[in-house]
Structure formats: structure tokens, C-alpha cells
């Protein structure tokens, strides 16, 4: 819309700002309410009403306040809002962006885009039509999108003769619905946007209403965020090295961050001390920051961390798992399919995932009904209770505890196609090992030489190459070949054969203690990796399915890179998604070179000795 200011607000300094969304079923009068609010507060640009009135006259239709904001020609012709508009409004020292969201079912993704930006909502219900499916759906989506402050406006009261009885029935029904979502509306206001009743001025027709007008109710929404008082969550956005400083950037999602804080990065379990807070054109530089701020920090040591990690204090860590349960709404053109893989984006972390289970499709009309369902897809505009499984461990929180790190979107191809909130962490098979690895890493004592120093010196990162596949496929032979080739180049490589642990470290174990054997192997590998060495190893000794073996080892050496190589006699498909696969190789020299190439491509070893390894994240 055009820039304009309420005369009444002209002299008042702005104290804060807030985004409010107007939602509700189609034709319940959202755009009209918005138009009326602006008109009655003198917030419209000069001549705007007259201009629209003239167009209406010319086209032979009745003037409607809705036309003030439905900007597109098609919107005006069809009398329906297609896409969300931001409109600006200033009242009593607060700057509002009021987002007019479309109510038509077809434009639900636009409604959701509008509501996702809002801190509070006005939800409209038509007094004549009463509570519609879409009224409930919008209520449900508001609660999923994190809009906790809601005022309900029962509109078009003029069409029901301003009946208090009709109003009371709608209020009762909708309050009961919202209570199932744990939402208590701040106010329920009877109004007529068309006539201006209870919009900016109290209605003489409804003297029985003792609550505020719509305009007054806006001031009752709180813009004070409680997020600063929560434990720290700082999702890492990027790492910059434009000059001598290596700056880690991101936006603090909750809590506070101070210079001198010892912080933990999840899921990598790295830790460091915040040395400075960096800022441009701010003197003196800040020493602390809090929720909402986009900041940059430097650390006391140069640890490898990358976008996607969540920074927290050790006293309150995020959860880490590959599996979680969530309520999800789907907006994709194609249905959400259990057979497809998607990208999950949670704060700044992006990882491949699949939907492991669709427990039920949530019916907005019947929230509490826990019907037994067997669904394999979630269709567009449906809300579902699902379990999601990620390819690599993800740090997150429950939505009930943390907003930003408790919600995610799913990306299908190029498009953000759905969003959800996490309701439960599901412990996966590696949970116990992951907790062990976390505790061990937090307490890990290091010398003055960092992993980065070693990598620089050796020309490669510390990593693990795991050879998997049936017996007698030449895994040990290949391992030896890779080891000798790399050592000849001057790299620090060691073949760690699990057999060597069996008679010594594992001497007290029985054949059936496979999990414990893997655990001990993983801890030995972790130790060797900390020396900066590139390990190569076979896995047959463990006598467990390959996927279990690889996942357990990966969890223990995390976050060191693991390259998996599958070897087989004939073309049997690999039981896991291996990085490399070879069938009955005869020429082990070229196979070894293929492994070397993969290590280079992954940025684990530098092209030539003396060069720094090419890491896949910015340093």
C-alpha cells in the first residue's frame, strides 16, 4: 500500500513494532476489516478512497473497503484476496505491519506464509455463517505456526441484527475448539467491518459488549518476547573470513550470549570460548547479545564448525537424534510420499530425510479423535502426525520448549513444500552411543595442537575409510593397497584391523558381544582420529548387519568424516548407501586410486602434499 500515517500518531515516537495477521474463512470480511480500520483511523493516503470509489462507479459496482488492499486486477475483479499483503499502520506508539491473508482454501500456502510472519492474529468469523471448516483449520495452523496471541472477531453482526445470543453461541463454540489447541483468545469481539461497529469506535448497536474495539485490542497484544529469558540457542548461519577475523555468524533464536561464555556446538559436540562479538559501526563493540539479534562471534580457538550447528551452553543442550515425531502441514503440489526422500531444514541445518511413518491425518474438525488410519501419503493442505527420519543426526528441540529450533520445513525439489513442529524425540538405535560420545567429547582434554594444525601439517583431515561387504571380496587387500599408496605419498595413514582388538582389548568379550566390540573399536578409532591420522578398516569381525555397524561407528567418531566402500563378488546391491561400490575388482591399483579420488573430492585429502586440504565448509 501507499505510505501514510495516522494524524493522531504523528507526534508519537515509535516504541516498538509488531506483525499482525488477519485470518479466517473466505468472505468472512478480512480485507473489509482492514480497509475499515485504516479508513476510520485516518491512515489512508489522501484521495485513496475517492480513487477507488471512482473506479467502482466506472465499473458499476458497489464500493468496498476490501478494494483498498486487493492490489491485483484479478483480485478486484473476483473480489477475493489471492496473496498476502503487508500493510503498514501506526497507532499509539507502535508500528504495525498488518498482514491480510487470503481465506480461500486454494491459497492456503499464502495464508500460511502470512501467518508465519506474525506475532499475533485477528481471526474473523462471519456471524451469519458461523464457525466454518476453514475457521478451524486457520485456528489449528495458527497454533502450529507459533502465533499464540489470538483475538477473535465475530464479523457481520449487522446481518444478525446485532444479536447477543448469536454472538454468544459462536463465542462458545470457537472457544471450545481453541481450548483443544491450548489457545485462549485474548478477546472475542462482536463487530461489523462494513458498518464500522466496534472497529475503531464502540458500537451503539451493541452496548452489551463491554470489551475493547478491534483497534483497542491491538494494543493488548504483547510484543515482549520471552525468548531472551530461555536457554541459549544460536543456530550457526555462516563462517566468514573476509579479513584477519574468522567470524561465526547467525541469529540468536533464544537466550543470551556473552563474551567469555563456554559454548557447545551440536551435533558436532565441539566446544570453545566466545572471544569477541563483532559488529560494524558500533563503538564500543558489544559484549553481549540476546534473542532476535543477528550477530558475529570469534572463538578462542580455531575449531572446525559449519553452518547448521546449534550453539548452546553446556547446562542446556539441544536434543540430538536421527528420528523425531512431528505435526506437519503439507503444501506441495505432489503429495508427501513415504517412498520419497526430502530435505529437512531446521533453523540453518539441512539434511536429507524420509517420512518413516504417517500416524494419522489430523482433521481440524475433530482434533481429539484418535482414529486408526493407514496412510502412505499426505495430500496438499492436510495436517498430519508423522515420524521423520534423517540421514545424519540433527540437533533440535521440542516445539513446546523452543520455537525456532523446534520447527522445520521440508523441501521437495526446489520448493519449500511443508512445515512442522516437533512433538517428540524418538530415541534411535545409536542413542546410547551418542550420549556416550557427547559426554566424552565435552570432557575431552586437548593439547595445544588442534585438529586444524594437524590437518595443515599432514595435508589431509583425520577421517575413517570403512570397507564393507561379504567375506573374501578383497577388502583387506584393498585396505593394504590404499594404506601403502597413501603412505608412499607421505600421508599419515593407518590400517586398523578389528581383528587386532579381539585378542587384546576385547579378550574379556564373548562372540555375542558384538555391540560392545563395536563400541570399543569406535572409541579406539576416535582416539586415533584425534591424532590426525587417516584410518582405513574392514568390518567383518563384528558379525552384525552392515548398516548397524556403520551407524554405530559413525556415531562414535562423529563428526569426523566417514567414507564407506562396498565390495562384493557379484552385483548384489549394497545393504547401505555406500559412497563407493566395487564388484569383484581385479585391478586393485585402479580401485585404490578410485578411493583416493573420492577422498580428494570429499575434501579429506589435499590435492598435493603441502597444500591445505579443501574443506567443504568455509574457514
Amino acid at each position, binding site marked *: *500500500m*501507499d*505510505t*501514510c*500515517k495516522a*494524524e493522531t500518531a*504523528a*507526534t508519537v515516537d*515509535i*516504541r*516498538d*513494532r509488531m*506483525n499482525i495477521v488477519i485470518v479466517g474463512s473466505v468472505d468472512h470480511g478480512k480485507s473489509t476489516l482492514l480497509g475499515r480500520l485504516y479508513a476510520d483511523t485516518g491512515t489512508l*493516503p*489522501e484521495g485513496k478512497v475517492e480513487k477507488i470509489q471512482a473506479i467502482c462507479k466506472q465499473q458499476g459496482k458497489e464500493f468496498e473497503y476490501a478494494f483498498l488492499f486487493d*492490489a*491485483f*486486477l*484479478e483480485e478486484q475483479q473476483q473480489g477475493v484476496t*489471492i*496473496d*498476502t*499483503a*503487508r*500493510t*503498514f499502520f501506526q497507532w499509539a506508539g507502535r*508500528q504495525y*505491519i498488518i498482514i491480510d491473508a487470503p481465506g480461500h482454501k486454494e491459497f492456503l*500456502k*499464502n495464508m500460511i*506464509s502470512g501467518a*508465519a510472519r506474525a506475532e499475533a492474529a485477528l481471526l474473523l468469523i462471519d456471524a451469519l455463517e458461523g464457525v466454518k471448516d476453514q475457521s478451524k483449520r486457520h485456528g489449528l495452523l495458527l497454533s502450529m505456526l*507459533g502465533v499464540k496471541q489470538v483475538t477473535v472477531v465475530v464479523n457481520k453482526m449487522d446481518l444478525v441484527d446485532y444479536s447477543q445470543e448469536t454472538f454468544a453461541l459462536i463465542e462458545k463454540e470457537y472457544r471450545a475448539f481453541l481450548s483443544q489447541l491450548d489457545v485462549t483468545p485474548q478477546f472475542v469481539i462482536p463487530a461489523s467491518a462494513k458498518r464500522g461497529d466496534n472497529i475503531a469506535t464502540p458500537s451503539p448497536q451493541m452496548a452489551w459488549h463491554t470489551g475493547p474495539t478491534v483497534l483497542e485490542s491491538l494494543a493488548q497484544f504483547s510484543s515482549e518476547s520471552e525468548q531472551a529469558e530461555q536457554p541459549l540457542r544460536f543456530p550457526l*548461519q*555462516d563462517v*566468514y573470513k*573476509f579479513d584477519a*577475523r574468522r567470524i561465526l*555468524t547467525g*541469529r540468536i533464536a533464544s537466550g543470551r550470549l556473552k563474551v567469555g561464555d563456554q559454548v557447545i556446538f551440536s551435533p558436532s559436540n565441539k566446544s570453545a570460548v566466545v572471544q569477541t562479538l563483532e*559488529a*560494524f*559501526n558500533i563503538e564500543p563493540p558489544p559484549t553481549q547479545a540476546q534473542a*532476535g*539479534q*543477528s550477530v*558475529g562471534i570469534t572463538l578462542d580457538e580455531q575449531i572446525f564448525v559449519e*553452518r547448521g550447528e546449534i550453539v548452546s551452553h553446556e547446562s542446556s543442550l539441544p536434543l540430538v537424534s536421527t528420528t523425531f515425531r512431528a505435526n506437519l502441514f503439507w*503444501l506441495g503440489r505432489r503429495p508427501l510420499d513415504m517412498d520419497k526422500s526430502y530435505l529437512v*531444514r531446521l533453523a540453518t541445518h539441512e539434511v536429507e530425510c524420509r517420512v518413516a511413518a504417517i500416524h494419522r491425518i489430523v482433521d481440524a474438525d475433530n482434533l481429539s479423535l484418535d482414529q486408526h488410519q493407514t496412510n502412505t501419503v499426505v495430500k496438499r493442505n492436510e495436517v498430519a502426525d508423522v515420524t521423520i527420519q534423517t540421514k545424519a543426526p540433527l540437533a533440535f528441540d521440542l516445539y513446546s520448549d523452543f520455537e*525456532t529450533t523446534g*520447527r522445520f*520445513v521440508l*523441501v521437495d*525439489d*526446489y*520448493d*519449500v*513444500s511443508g*512445515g512442522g513442529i516437533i512433538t517428540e524425540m524418538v530415541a534411535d538405535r545409536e542413542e546410547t552411543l551418542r550420549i556416550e560420545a557427547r559426554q566424552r567429547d565435552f570432557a575431552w582434554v586437548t593439547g595445544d595442537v588442534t585438529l586444524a594444525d594437524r590437518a595443515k601439517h599432514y595435508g589431509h583431515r583425520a577421517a575413517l575409510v570403512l570397507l564393507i561387504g561379504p567375506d573374501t571380496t578383497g577388502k583387506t587387500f584393498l585396505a593394504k593397497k590404499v594404506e601403502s599408496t597413501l603412505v608412499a605419498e607421505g600421508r599419515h595413514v593407518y590400517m586398523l584391523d578389528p581383528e587386532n582388538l579381539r585378542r587384546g582389548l576385547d579378550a574379556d568379550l564373548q562372540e555375542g558381544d558384538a555391540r560392545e566390540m563395536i563400541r570399543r573399536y569406535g572409541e579406539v578409532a576416535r582416539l586415533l582420529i584425534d591424532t590426525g591420522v587417516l584410518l582405513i578398516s574392514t568390518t567383518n569381525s563384528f558379525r552384525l548387519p552392515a548398516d548397524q555397524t556403520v551407524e554405530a561407528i559413525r556415531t562414535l567418531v562423529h563428526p569426523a568424516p566417514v567414507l564407506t566402500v562396498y565390495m562384493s563378488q557379484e552385483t548384489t546391491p549394497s545393504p547401505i548407501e555406500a559412497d563407493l561400490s566395487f564388484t569383484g575388482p581385479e585391478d586393485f591399483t585402479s580401485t585404490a586410486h578410485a578411493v583416493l579420488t573420492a577422498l580428494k573430492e570429499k575434501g579429506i585429502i589435499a590435492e598435493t602434499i603441502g597444500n591445505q586440504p579443501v574443506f567443504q565448509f568455509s574457514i
Partner: protein
Amino acid sequence: MRHLRQLEDQSVYILREAYKHFDNLGMLWSMGKDSTVLLWLARKAFFGHVPFPLLHVDTSYKIPAMIEYRDRLAREWRLNLVVGQNKKALAEGMNHERGRVECCTALKTNGLKILLEEKGYTGIILGVRADEESTRAKERYFSPRDKNNDWDFRDQPPELWDQFKTSFPPNTHIRIHPLLDWTEINIWEYIKLENIPFMDLYLDKGNGTRYRSLGCAPCTFPIKSTASTVDEIIEELRATNVAERAGRAQDEGRGMEVLRKDGYM
């Protein structure tokens, strides 16, 4: 002031997302107050650096003082300035007398199109604001454009929380709008707060007029105003009910909807 820092935090976040996800990124700079604030925000986001080129689509009809200002800041802030121009249309004598929408399409929309094709940018950062004009009110922060630069406003991607559309098919590009939530007053409040150098065409220098919005000389008209400081501009804006772009001729009728659908900024 808190509201300005909130706006700043959001814009900085968007700029950093853009920088992370687009290898071939550019920022349009028209030297006006909005894109100059945007440039300043980039220096905030990247700690004094601007790690992508600043693109200026030169129609050749800009007010001369704007070009001097452009070159001075480019030097002082060590900017990578890229100037594009629709030379063919200019050689054929395009000007506003052939029609304002035609002229804007040829020199700005197509001028930008040529520049995008030439350099292969996949992400373009622009300083448009939602409060300027009603089709901009319906924009996303990350807004896709197809191979012809067209904006399909009927089917915009969902934008959830801070998760933006950062992947896109080949031959298309994304327009990034970090200033959508800023109002005209916020821009001036921020210029004051941060002490950002701006063009004095925005100020009255004694003849009772100033520019409220800057564009090409033939199509941009000064307003009657005696505001000669930033404070006076803010005061004036708080009291006015006249649209900001009232002095921009191409906005008349449905001009902007037509222009923007076809790739105008």
C-alpha cells in the same frame, strides 16, 4: 530505536542467507535512499565488506549528481561496481516521450535483463519496500523469476518463518528483498541512527522543494517541502498523507502491476 534494530537484524539475516546460497549474487544500487540503506546493511552483515558486485542499470537519464555520488562511494567503500545499460534501445533513441511504461520497460526492465544474461546472476538483491506500492506489498523476501524474468504473482512459493526459497531450476533467478518490512520513515530514521551518507537532492536547499523519491530526471518531480535536515524529513513524513511515489510518473493507472509482472524492480 528498538524497532530499527529489529528491522536491521531481519535484513542482515536475509542478506547472509542470500550470500550463503547464491554463488553468483549481485545487489542493485540506484543510489536512492533505500538501496543505499541496503548497501549499508550489507556492510553491517559482512563486517565492513561488500562481498558481491553492486549493479547499476544506467538509463542515461539519471540526475547527474547521482552518478557523482555513485562513483565517490564506490571508491571510498571499495565497491565492485558493475554498470549495465540497454545501449541498443538508447541508440534507437528510446526516451520517455515514447511512453513512460515503454521507456521504463526498455531502459530499466530490459536493461536489467541484459545485465542478468550477460553476467549470469542467479540472485539479485533489491531495496524494494512493501509500503511503496501495492504490488510490492505482496512480495516474498525471496521471490522467484522465470526464464523471461516474469513474476508469477498468482503462484508464489510459501515462505515459512526464516526458511526462504534458495534453490531454483536452471535459467531462472531469485529476487531477494531484505527491506520489505521497512517503511519510508524507518529508512530515514535508520539513516539518522547510523549516520549514513545520502544524496542532498532529498533536502530543500532554500527554494522550497526537494525530491522524495529519486529516479530518471524527466520522470521524477520534486515535492514542495522545506525539510532541510533528516529530522525535518521524518517530521514531515509523519504528518503527510501523500503517497511517496506520487512524484513517479510510471506509477499511474495500473503501470506498476504491468511493469513488475514483466520483471521491473
